[in-house]
């Protein structure tokens, strides 16, 4: 595999496609021109004008398998609220930024969300999709490709020391789900007022065994007022915020399966305006903006599975 191809995979998720060249019209109709295909099919797809990367079933199996993103009605199992359980993998991408991931989506309807999720975190992900999802997957990839280039460092309000344990992973899952912005650390960082190291007296392992309550404890330590990001109007949107202090890019992933109108967002920082890009809609203006007291608030008229907001 060439360095160029490796870079391509790292830059955007790749659709894993095992159907033959006869499926070309469907892919072209969806605007899909980049594929991961079995090695023995590389040549035929390349000759057809596609940018291809060889990925065998064995390659896919070696990647960290990710669940199909979305929501399930597990309210009450791990949350004291009525919010549905979100199946999301952003925390896995944060935990292993150089990791290789694979989605095998057996049922239709999840490809666009998986592609959005992986794109938002810049994850190296291969996505095996149902043929019925080709149009929506193509549209999502086209949307991602249309975004203005902007590479900014992630924003974090606290650190989480990762000991590699499942319990630390589950804590990160719940923290990410609640839009508590953290950075995964190898050791306690002086950059943060709050450093979560599970197994220490401040964060006993027994407490972390209830990840929802554990996330609430950390939320209380941060205080909602001091959090860099708040999302109102939905319990099923997970955000990723990046910023260099002057500009910010906010990724909003909607796991609920339904469009959300009037989502309200508060971002701390010196921002006074911006633009939003919504999958399926394109560029839209921010609504009901309020910039004051070191933060900006705005609403989005509608978001589908994925939206990106650039603040300045």
């Amino acid at each position, binding site marked *: 595999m060439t360095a160029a191809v490796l870079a391509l995979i790292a830059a955007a998720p790749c659709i894993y496609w095992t159907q033959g060249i006869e499926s070309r019209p469907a892919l072209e109709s969806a605007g899909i021109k980049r594929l991961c295909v079995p090695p023995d099919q590389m040549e035929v797809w390349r000759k057809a004008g596609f940018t291809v990367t060889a990925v065998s079933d064995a390659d896919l199996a070696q990647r960290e398998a990710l669940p199909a993103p979305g929501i399930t009605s597990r309210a*009450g199992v791990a*949350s*004291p*609220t*009525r*919010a549905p359980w979100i199946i999301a993998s952003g925390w896995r991408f944060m935990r292993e930024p150089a990791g290789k991931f694979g989605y095998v989506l057996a049922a239709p309807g999840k490809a666009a969300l998986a592609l959005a999720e992986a794109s938002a975190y810049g994850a190296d992900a291969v996505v095996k999709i149902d043929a019925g999802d080709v149009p929506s997957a193509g549209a999502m990839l086209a949307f991602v490709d249309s975004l203005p280039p902007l590479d900014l460092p992630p924003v974090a309000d606290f650190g989480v020391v990762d000991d590699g344990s499942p319990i630390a992973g589950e804590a990160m899952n719940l923290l990410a789900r*609640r*839009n508590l912005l953290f950075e995964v650390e190898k050791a306690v960082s002086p950059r943060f007022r709050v450093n979560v190291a599970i197994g220490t007296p401040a964060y006993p392992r027994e407490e972390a065994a209830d990840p*929802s309550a554990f996330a*609430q404890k950390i*939320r209380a330590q941060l205080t*909602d007022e001091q959090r860099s990001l708040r*999302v*109102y*109007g*939905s*319990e099923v949107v997970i955000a990723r915020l990046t910023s260099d202090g002057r500009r910010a890019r906010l990724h909003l992933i909607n796991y*609920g399966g*339904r*469009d*959300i*109108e*009037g*989502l*309200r967002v508060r971002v701390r920082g010196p921002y006074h305006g911006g633009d939003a890009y919504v999958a399926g809609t394109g560029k839209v203006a921010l609504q*009901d*903006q*309020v*910039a*004051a*007291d070191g933060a900006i*608030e705005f*609403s989005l*008229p509608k978001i589908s599975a994925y939206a990106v907001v650039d603040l300045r």
Partner: protein
Amino acid sequence: MHRRAFVRLLAATAASVKAAGLNLAAKGRISPDGLQIRSDLPTLKIVSRYSPAAAPGMPGPFPGRVVAVKSDRCVDTTTNTANDQVVREMMAQGMRALTGATTTADAWRRFFTPADVVGIKVNCGGYPNCISAYEIVGETVRQLLALGIPVSQIYVYERYQNQMDECNYAAHVAEGVQTVAAERANRNTDNSGYDPETYLEANLFGEEDTRSNMMRLVSTRLTKIINIPNMKDHGATGATGCLKNIAYGSFSNVARTHQRGKSHTYSVVGTLAAMEPLRSRTVLQIMDGIRGVWHGGPFARTTKYLFYPKQIMFGTDPVAIDRLLLDIIDNERKAHGAISIWDRSPSSLRIDDGRARDADPNVNIIIREPGHVEYAASLGLGVYDLAKIKVQELTV
């Protein structure tokens, strides 16, 4: 919005809290009129850029005063059908008695001018058996039109459009009256009908969405509101009447206040009702007691718990009417051998077991908070003390 305007917003917030005599961070207090307020209350933050009117609509010009018009003929209990002519007469007599006006038109003129944009807050939650009666809503619209208010300035509203579609008030009011809702359905996906800058913020159960926003219709369009609730039992508040209908029917994201057996409705209902501009603009309370629900409320998908108070109450004080309502619901429950709405015993509690609650009126799924009415009184929304409430009863 520019920074200066936002700062004003914050200043107005502080002012409105102060004006209401509230210290929302306080944990336990005795109100100026001696009401004992519980000590286990969540912190509630109010954000509104609206100042109260010189004379807020609640409790309005008639604090502690309720006119109850009764009629055995107002509803056929065998068919659950209201008698339109009788209801009109009940409405006319009730409005005249409340205001002291000699004509019905003058009574309505006491509250409204042709320049007003009027919202009629109905209750669709008890569809199909106990919703704000078409006959009351229809007569209300007729009287507003008779005052010269253009039809385009009259709104019948609820929170959910699917409920409004079920109830179909449009078929019972003059053409051109706008029947509207803030959300298509109770799915928490549609916030555009709410004012992002007028809200109550509270973290009640660890939810991430900590805001309940006022409907844009209420904050930006309406100048006056008529509240038409029903006489219903409610699993979280004990009873749902004027306060609950206007508060939880005008704000988003309120179901979050009661779950897993616990209800924060005790303080949230009154706090929402007291928020500006809702408090100032809600000028008339017409309690529809033609039908009632004594258990399983606020829903009434079956007639199992339906009863017939056969009355309509008129007033401007939502607390006084709701204080009477608490006894009406509780007495009906007692008549059926059911536990009181004040029951807080763990033995009655079957958390989240809606089927058990629907099957057995001695089951609570949440510890009810009928004390929300008293709490609302402590916010200045009206008179709670039965000894100070003057009820004028009329019979048609």
